[in-house]
């Protein structure tokens, strides 16, 4: 080869223009954070200093808080399902909200029958146990089936492929429920024992809210015991750390993954009954919004971590129930609660921008 042929390749190197050296991204981030902070502070200030007739009373804030905690407890349970699966497969199980819906819907048929027969009011504890059991069985079966049919064939595919499948699965399950159970919203009965409220430390707490928080807390405790101390839980943790090494250590990774989906399904089933008891309805599309909110909660707390999911769920629940009123009323925004999901998504976006690892999580380091 002659020298002339390669001459074009010898580098001249181009200097960078001034503009190109400007750290635009950092400036943008600072700008976003300043605007958000100002918005939150000014909004809260204006809301809290509203004249008595138009603002919220202390009692209203207390009620918001209680409802927020109850809501957050449900989010936490669903969030755990996302978190567990993400921990092992590094995939967002977009259809998890539908797993939750299936459990709630299945339990509805029993609840409705028990409501008609009076069994629900006569022995509420036993009836609720049965409802939980039904929801757990259905949700975890759907979750396991989902894994087997839609995700397992794609174990080694690029990351976006299983996510697209998951979106498809979400759409499919939702509209399968529509085809199977119909389009109408079904009223979910509430046993007499759960009507009204208890006074806890002088604060009136709706009985359903109390039940929701208690059951959720119990489930989180059981789950963390299970993951920390049982053999199956340990193999789950091992698989989450490194699937290949885990399988070399004699762990049947396929089984562990199936188990993870099943556990996520159990939690989603419990969450489904709690959600239905609280809002007193089931509908084929009921899984979508709580699903997204729970995913946000999982990210917020640090995806892959149990404590993170619980914490993120609570934080998001409270934020959703207090946030719109607190930040927006001051700006005279009418019906601020219409914008509750805007709060959810804004939180999600901000967390991902500023702290992608979440409150408790650590950021994944990509190695080249």
């Amino acid at each position, binding site marked *: 080869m002659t020298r002339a042929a390669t001459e074009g390749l010898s580098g001249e190197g181009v200097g960078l223009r001034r503009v190109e050296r400007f750290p635009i*991204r950092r400036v*943008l*981030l600072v700008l*976003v954070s300043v605007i958000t902070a100002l918005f939150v502070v000014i909004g809260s200030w204006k809301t809290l200093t509203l004249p008595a007739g138009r603002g919220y009373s202390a009692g209203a804030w207390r009620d918001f808080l209680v409802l927020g905690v109850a809501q957050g407890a449900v989010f936490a349970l669903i969030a755990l399902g996302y978190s567990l699966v993400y921990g092992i497969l590094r*995939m*967002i199980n977009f259809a998890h909200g539908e797993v939750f819906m299936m459990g709630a819907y299945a339990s509805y*048929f029993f609840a409705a029958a028990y409501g008609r027969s009076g069994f629900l009011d006569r022995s509420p504890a036993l009836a609720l146990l049965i409802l939980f059991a039904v929801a757990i069985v259905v949700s975890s079966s759907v979750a396991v089936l989902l894994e087997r*049919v*839609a995700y397992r*064939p*794609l174990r080694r*595919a690029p*990351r*976006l*492929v*299983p*996510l*697209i*499948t998951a*979106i*498809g*699965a*979400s*759409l*499919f*399950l*939702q*509209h*399968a429920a*529509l*085809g*199977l*159970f*119909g389009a109408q919203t079904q009223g979910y009965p509430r046993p007499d024992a759960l009507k009204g409220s208890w006074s806890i430390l002088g604060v009136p707490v709706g009985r359903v809210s109390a039940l929701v928080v208690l059951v959720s807390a119990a489930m989180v405790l059981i789950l963390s015991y299970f993951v920390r101390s049982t053999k199956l839980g340990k193999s789950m943790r091992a698989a989450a750390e490194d699937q290949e090494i885990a399988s070399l250590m004699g762990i049947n990774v396929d089984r562990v993954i199936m188990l993870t989906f099943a556990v996520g399904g159990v939690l989603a089933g419990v969450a489904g009954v709690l959600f239905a008891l609280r809002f007193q309805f089931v509908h084929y599309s009921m899984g*979508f919004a709580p699903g*997204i909110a729970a*995913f946000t909660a999982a*990210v917020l707390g640090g995806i892959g971590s149990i404590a993170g999911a619980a914490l993120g769920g609570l934080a998001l629940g409270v934020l959703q129930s207090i946030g719109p009123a607190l930040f927006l009323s001051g700006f005279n*925004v*009418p*019906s601020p609660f*219409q*914008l509750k*999901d*805007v709060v*959810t*998504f*804004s939180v*999600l*976006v901000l967390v*991902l*921008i500023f702290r*992608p690892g979440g409150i408790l999580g650590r950021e994944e380091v*990509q*190695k*080249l």
Partner: protein
Amino acid sequence: MSGARLREGARAGLIGGAVFVFLGMVGMIANFAGLSLVGSQVTLGLVLMLLPALIAAATAARPRVEAGEVRRLPTPAAAATGIAAGAVTGAVVAAALLVVEVVTVERIRSVFVSVSPTLVGIVAFHRTWAVAAAIHVAGGAVLGAAGGAYRSLAPDVRRPVAVGLGTVLVLGLLQRLVPTILFELGLRSDWLYSRTTLGLTWPGAGLAFAAGAGGWVIWRRRRRWQPGGPLERLAEGERATRIALGAVVLVGLLALPLLAGSVISEILGLVAVFLLLGLGLNVVVGYAGLLDLGYVAFFAVGAYFTALLTGADIVAVLGTAEPAFSLHLSFYAALPIVILLAAGIGILIGAPVLRLRGDYLAIVTLGFGEIARIVFASEWLQPVAGGAQGLRAVTPAPILGIGFRQPQRFYYLALAACLLAIFVSRRLADSRIGRAWTAMREDEQVAEAMGISTVKYKLLAFAIGGAVGSLGGALFAVKLSTVQPDSFTILVSIVALAIVILGGMGSIPGVVVGALVLMGLPGLLAQFEEFRLLIYGAVLIAVMILRPQGLIPNVRRMRELKEEERLQDAWLRAGEQAGEEPEVAVAGEEARP
């Protein structure tokens, strides 16, 4: 014949039976029983009832890799496996019928709303349980034998049969389109389609099968005779045929609304709007590899801003009122503003989130899409965007006094927009920008190390995708003359995604086919409407698992598929040219950390 094969067949049969029962329980079988494909006997419902056994058998009898070789089963063994699969499928259905018999339809119906006496009548062939069960098991066995045997045939025999049957199915499904066109052309259609059932006649179906199968055989043969490798085929002669083909397609597209009438033009207009969405999303997902689930935001921005810039009304307490902000530009003056605005919003949305990993990006964009809808629907923006009722009486978009609201004319407007979007996408894909996108999609970090500003090219993809999506929104607003927040749910994003995925990511012909199938078919056949989204979900799953490259793959992905063939070519030629031993090539992607 081993027991393992029979067990395999029985397992496939169980799954097939479950699928059959599911199809019945969601209401598909009963619903599609009203759609006649061939004669009065073969309805789409019947096809749905036949398919589970056939597919179960064909799957169970598929060739296996044994000792490093792909082995096709001999026909008798394949048929036997198929019989096991089909009979078990039938048995599962029979068992389900027995459950219905014992529990009664009414009781089941109180939970599963689609289980109706009609459905049970169809599935049981209006006979007693015992007879129906016998028919299902025996029929399943026959179907299974056919399915298994089919799978054991050589591809040269199998393909024409499949293509022939496919032709019959497609023509049967196009039963509203084809006769209308034939009629407008002054041709008779009663030899092909029945007047009473609307489906194909038996002779017509036979002809369609022969045409499909025969056409396939002839086409294959021509291709095989062609000299030279794939590189030579792109020579000058090919170019001429491509131009001629393009001209024919264009004339066909221009003539279509004249031949098809206003109902079908209406559907085509909607297809075109979604085609635009697909094309725009294809730039983002297919070229740049960014999964945007909030694409509907651009659709909404396009629609709302077009309405506001050209003039529209909001619903007030008494009648309608002017929104708090609106201009009265002409549609064509507003369009560039809307497009630029959408591109700007694309950049604004993109800028803070571009560093996120792919799956997080998907969820965040989904969030943006929902935020857009909620904000447009909110009471807070009611004075401008009209709240839940949206905007009405959007100013139409005439050229030289010719309005475009009428379906046939709207079609031309939408067609022009689609052609423009296709032109831009193609030019971009085949340029420095397209290369940068491909490199970024394949390996972001390395692309950056090679001098590509990933931020810039991601933003560019978002901006262009946003611009095309807003164009779709603008047309949508003009077409309906109303803009309502209900039209901008997450489902729009998912439908656009399904269009891109079904056709093949990064493939423009793929997006066109995707839009035609996913939007056109439900439009043409009312029976599909109810199950549209269920089918979309299934399509997304099935395509990702079975054929991730889509129906009409992008050339690059096609290349991957043809790798083996090309390798052999190259191997031979390298040996001839260099006279040295060609290197053994390693296929497959690098292992990534």
